[in-house]
Structures are given as structure tokens and as C-alpha cells.
């Protein structure tokens, strides 16, 4: 597997390097081309096959005549590779993929005048730096969500106020130690969660942005993570495995997504979630248009459709995410009026959205890049 993946990556990389000048956004849209190919996260484009109530594709196809085909991707890297290979029109890219796609010139600017629903988008997302470069929009916001602190309500009568319950050894309210009863995410991006905790805990380090760490700050973060290893039995990678760990392995607190929390609550397990005082990391996805999309008209029609309040609300209910269109929060039967708050709508200002850390950074001049995070985090898990 590794050989082919690496080769595919290499080919993609060389293709990305050889493309030419910046592209201009479309000026007008014509009739649909009859088809549309989308790369998406699993569960993001539903046509009622899993549950009849969740269907935001069939109506679109009937209305526009654009037959939608979806290719799901499990990781951001897979999405970038698929887009580099071509043959797709749209991709629902997360913050760690979107800037890479823009830098690789694999996506084209969006003319927001051709997307009437743009004006309904949450103002806080309109110019978000993960899809807007030099004032040019490279996509429309799709959904976002926080990485919440999930906790067991029988152990914690009140929501934990700080991430310290997962980072530092202590006795939990039930009198027993947290050792072996907490989890952490197994991706290197979790380094940012630890940095976020130290931002408040040790202000003398002067961390301004958890994705931009100078070597001193980074060393302090690593020390914290190494100490955390002793508390963590298993790092979580797969959402369903974490749900199972909360049920069967006695896990009582962990960083998590609203998705898992909603599943556990639906299963009547004593689990709830909170965003502690330090804030939280989070993700925000953007629907982006391929630079050489074969069906640009259908793609623009979908961009507009994807911002429809009904679509946004249904999707938020299905995925446990927050809509990019505030109007979606009211009057949606599947999401209910409490849904947006459950999934984290009010926490926007406390969230540091996911970005790929690079060597160059605004806050510190020279920062520790993501490749180093990867190596060191593997070492932390392996110790």
C-alpha cells in the first residue's frame, strides 16, 4: 500500500508544481451539464440510502438534472491526492487541505455573485483564512465543529472547567485517579490541543497561536504530552472505537467530536460535552471547485444548494456539526431548535480552527513544522 500511495503522492506533487498562472473566477453560469462529481467526507452528501429522512441530493438532481456522484475520502491527504489526480468537480476540504489545494492551484476562485445564498452565510465564516487568500474566495463554507471535551456525567456531576482533567494526573470527582481513564486524539494535530492548554496554564511561554510554536514553546508542549502518555490507555483514532471505549473500557473524559457525543447520548449513556475555559480546537470544511472541473455549471448550482438552510440543518443533525448558515438553526425538524447549541454554535469565538503548522509563521518568525510534530508525536505515543 505504502509504495503506491507514495508514488501517487509524488506524481500529484509534480503535477501540482507544474501548473501555471492564477485562474480567474467564472463570470456567468449556463445550463447544467447533467452530471457532478464530488469528493466528500463520509456522511457529508446523503441521498437517503442510510436513512430516508436524510436526503439532500435527490431533490437537487430532480431540479437541476445534474446527476451527483460521490467519492468519499477518509483523510485530508486522500482528498488532496484525489483532487490532484483530477476528474472531480467539488471537494469538501478541511482547513488542513484547503490551503494546500489553493497553493497547488488545484482549485479555482469562486465568483460569489453567482452563488445567491452566499449572503446567508455566517458572517464569521465569509472571509475565513482557510478559504480566502488575498481577498479571493476559493469556496463556500460547508460545516464546522469543535473538538469538545466529552465526559462521563456519573463521574463529573458538573462539567469539567479545564482540559487539565485529560492532561495532568489528578483525582476525579469520584475520588479515583484519572490514570487509564482518559483519552487523547492519535493525530499529531493534537499537539495544538496541548499548546492551547498551556496558552492559559503557562502564560510565561507566550504562546499566541497553538498552530505556531517556537522551539521553546514546543519543548514545553512536548513535556506535557509525554506526561500525558502515562494517563492514556489508548489514543483514539476511529470515532466508532472511541464510542465503544466510552461504553466498554471505562473511559470517562477525552477530546472528542459532537458526533460521538450525540451517538452516546442517543444510546442513553451518561455522557455530555463541554468547551472548557481554555477554548478548543476545531475544524471547518469548505466546498471547493476544481481548477479544471468538467461540470462547472452543475458545481455552481450545488454550491448554492449546499447553503440552503434545509440542507445545512439536515446535515448538521446527521453529522453532529454546526451549519454555516445561521438560518438553518431554526425550524429544522431533524436538528431541532436546540441542535445548533448542542453541536457548538455559541463556541465559535473560543475555537482555534485546524491549520497545517509550517516553518514560517506570523507569531514567532520560525516555528516547528508539522513534519516534526508527526515524528515527535509518534515518539510520545511510543514511549
Amino acid at each position, binding site marked *: 500500500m*505504502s509504495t503506491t500511495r*507514495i508514488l501517487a503522492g509524488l506524481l500529484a506533487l509534480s503535477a501540482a508544481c507544474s501548473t501555471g498562472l492564477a485562474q480567474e473566477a467564472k463570470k456567468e453560469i449556463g445550463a447544467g451539464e447533467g452530471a457532478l462529481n464530488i469528493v466528500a467526507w463520509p456522511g457529508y452528501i446523503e441521498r437517503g440510502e442510510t436513512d430516508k429522512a436524510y436526503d439532500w441530493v435527490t431533490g437537487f438532481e430532480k431540479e437541476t438534472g445534474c446527476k451527483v456522484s460521490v467519492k468519499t475520502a477518509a483523510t485530508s491527504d486522500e482528498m488532496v491526492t484525489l483532487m490532484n489526480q483530477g476528474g472531480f468537480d467539488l471537494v469538501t476540504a478541511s482547513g488542513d487541505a484547503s490551503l494546500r489545494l489553493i497553493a497547488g492551484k488545484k482549485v479555482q476562485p469562486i465568483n460569489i455573485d453567482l452563488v445567491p445564498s452566499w449572503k446567508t452565510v455566517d458572517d464569521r465564516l465569509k472571509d475565513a483564512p482557510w478559504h480566502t487568500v488575498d481577498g479571493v474566495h476559493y469556496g463556500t463554507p460547508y460545516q464546522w465543529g469543535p473538538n469538545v471535551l466529552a465526559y462521563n456525567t456519573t463521574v463529573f456531576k458538573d462539567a469539567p472547567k479545564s482540559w487539565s482533567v485529560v492532561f495532568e494526573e489528578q483525582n476525579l470527582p469520584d475520588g479515583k485517579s484519572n490514570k487509564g481513564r482518559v483519552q487523547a486524539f492519535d493525530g499529531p494535530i493534537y499537539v495544538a490541543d496541548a499548546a492551547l492548554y498551556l496558552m492559559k496554564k503557562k502564560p510565561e511561554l507566550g504562546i499566541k497561536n497553538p498552530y505556531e510554536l517556537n522551539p521553546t514553546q514546543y519543548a514545553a508542549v512536548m513535556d506535557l504530552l509525554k506526561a500525558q502518555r502515562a494517563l492514556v490507555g*489508548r489514543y483514539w483514532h*476511529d470515532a466508532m472505537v472511541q464510542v465503544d471505549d466510552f461504553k466498554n473500557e471505562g473511559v470517562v473524559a477525552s477530546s472528542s467530536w459532537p458526533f460521538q457525543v450525540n451517538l452516546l447520548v442517543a444510546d442513553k449513556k451518561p455522557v455530555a460535552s463541554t468547551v472548557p475555559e481554555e477554548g478548543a480546537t476545531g475544524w471547518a470544511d469548505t466546498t471547493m471547485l476544481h481548477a479544471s472541473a468538467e461540470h462547472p455549471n452543475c458545481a455552481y448550482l450545488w454550491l448554492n444548494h449546499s447553503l440552503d438552510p434545509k440542507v445545512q440543518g439536515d446535515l448538521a443533525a446527521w453529522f453532529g456539526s454546526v451549519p454555516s448558515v445561521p438560518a438553518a438553526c431554526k425550524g429544522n425538524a431533524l436538528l431541532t431548535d436546540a441542535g445548533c447549541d448542542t453541536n457548538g454554535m455559541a463556541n465559535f469565538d473560543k475555537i482555534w480552527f485546524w491549520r497545517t503548522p509550517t*516553518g514560517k509563521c506570523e507569531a514567532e518568525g520560525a516555528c516547528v513544522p508539522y513534519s516534526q510534530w*508527526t515524528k515527535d508525536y509518534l515518539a510520545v*505515543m*511510543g*514511549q
Partner: protein
Amino acid sequence: MMAARAGTVSDFFFRRPGLLTLALLAPPLLWIGVVYVGSLFALLLQSFYHLDDFSGLVVHEFTLSTYAQLAAPANLAIITRTVTMAAVVTIAAAILAFPIAYYAARYAKGPMKALFYLAVMMPLWSSYLVKVYAWKLILAKEGILGWLAAQLHLTPALNALLATPVIGGPSLSISYIGTFLVFTYIWLPYMILPIQAALERVPKTLIEAAADLGAHPGQTFRTVLLPLALPGVVAGSIFTFSLTLGDYIIPAIVGNSRPFIGQTVYALQGTAGDIPLAAAFTVVPMAIMAVYLTIAKQLGAFDAL
């Protein structure tokens, strides 16, 4: 008309047998040479580049610094962990598989034999992921095994096992013991089938002759049966050993999250873009397998092939 043309073609090749051989061999040779060896070579080449830590870009200059990184304590630990696990899994699989294969080769007849094949192959037909997730449930703290231990009043024994340093953990599914059990379960058929094939080829008369000459069963096993069945054991061990070396899904679902080579490669080639180190890590199992096969050859494991 068609027949005449076909005749011309066959006449043409009949007169030039070398060309015929070439025409028949070209596609498989191209496949092996370009697609197979070519991609391996590209991989090997990558491992001699290095990643510039500052810019996060691959520097295309010959260097051995990437291989030097493998010697870092954390990376050495990953390699040692993976190789130890692969070795232990292989030994356990061989010990478990031998009697099963022996029974199938010697005693199972007719419907029993069919049942044996079905029983060994059945796990291979169901999804790998389903099996691993099922094992996670079996091994969980509040899972079936824990429940069974409680029913049999063996919980203290289970806890004592889990309290073992290094291989223990908070529960079976969060320990090396769990990872080991799942690996052994998943790869066992790959050990049973080659051993069974090898045992089928051992003439029954040789065993009887050994007994006639006064060897007791243990001696017969050591001096007759095992040497003759060794190619099967080695063939099986190549499967179980190399499959464990490369797997990255089982240790991610069952275990204590301490990384194995497969997971490390997966993480490095992703967003991190550290393809050189990922390639260097991939070369490790290849080198280990090369050494392993050489030793097996020295031991005469392939003489019977």
C-alpha cells in the same frame, strides 16, 4: 481467410521460436520490471533524499541522513516493537498451526476434511475489519472475556496477567497481549495451509519406518517429521511474519497506541509529507525479510521446493 492468416502467424513464430518466447514473456516481464521493481526502486530512491525540517519540503539530494534518523531511540523502539511482535506472533502461530495441520493431513477424511478447509478458510472470507472490531469487543474491559473470567472467579488471575509490566495494561484490548491475540487469530490460516500442504507430502511409510527402527514419537517428530515439514513452516512464517511487520490497522484498533512500522509509515507519508523517512521505514521490513529468507535458505528450508 482468417484461418489462412492465423496459419501465417503461427508459421512466422514457428520459424522464429525466440521471438515467440519474447512475445509471450514481454507482458509479465514488463509488469515485474516496470510496475513492480520500478516502484520499489522509486521508493528506495526516495529514502536517500531528506526532508528539510524548516520548509517541510523534500530535498532531492543524495544523503544518508534519513537512514540515520532511523537510529533515533524513538524510531528504533518502533522497529524493535514491530519485529518482536512479528516474531512472537509467528512462533505462536506455528505452535498452534502444526497440530491442526497434522490432524488435517493425517486423520481428516472425506467430510471431515471438507469441514477442516471450511473452518480454516471461513475467517478469510469475512471482512478483516469486522473481525478486528469483534475482537475489540471480546477483549474490552467490560467485554466477553472479562465477563467469562468473572463467572469463573478468575478475575484476580486476569488482573494479575494485566499487571504484568510491558505486556499488560488497563484491559486486554489496551495491551500488547490483546494486539498479539488478534494478530495470531487473523494470520493463523496463512500458517496452517502451507504446513498442511507440506505434511501431506511426507510419506506415511517414513514415519512407520522410524517407529519400526525403535524411535519413540518425540524422536520421530524431531528427526523425521519436522525436517520434512520445515519448508511448510518457513513458508507459513514468511506470511505471518511479513504480514505482521506491515499491518497498520490491528495495532490502531486493539492495543495501547504504541506505534508499529505500518502506522508510522502511514503517518509520515500523510500531511507531514515526510516521504523520505516513510520510505526508509518501508525499507526496514524489506531488509529484515531478506535476512530472514537468507537464513531460512541456509537452514535448507527451500531444498525440498
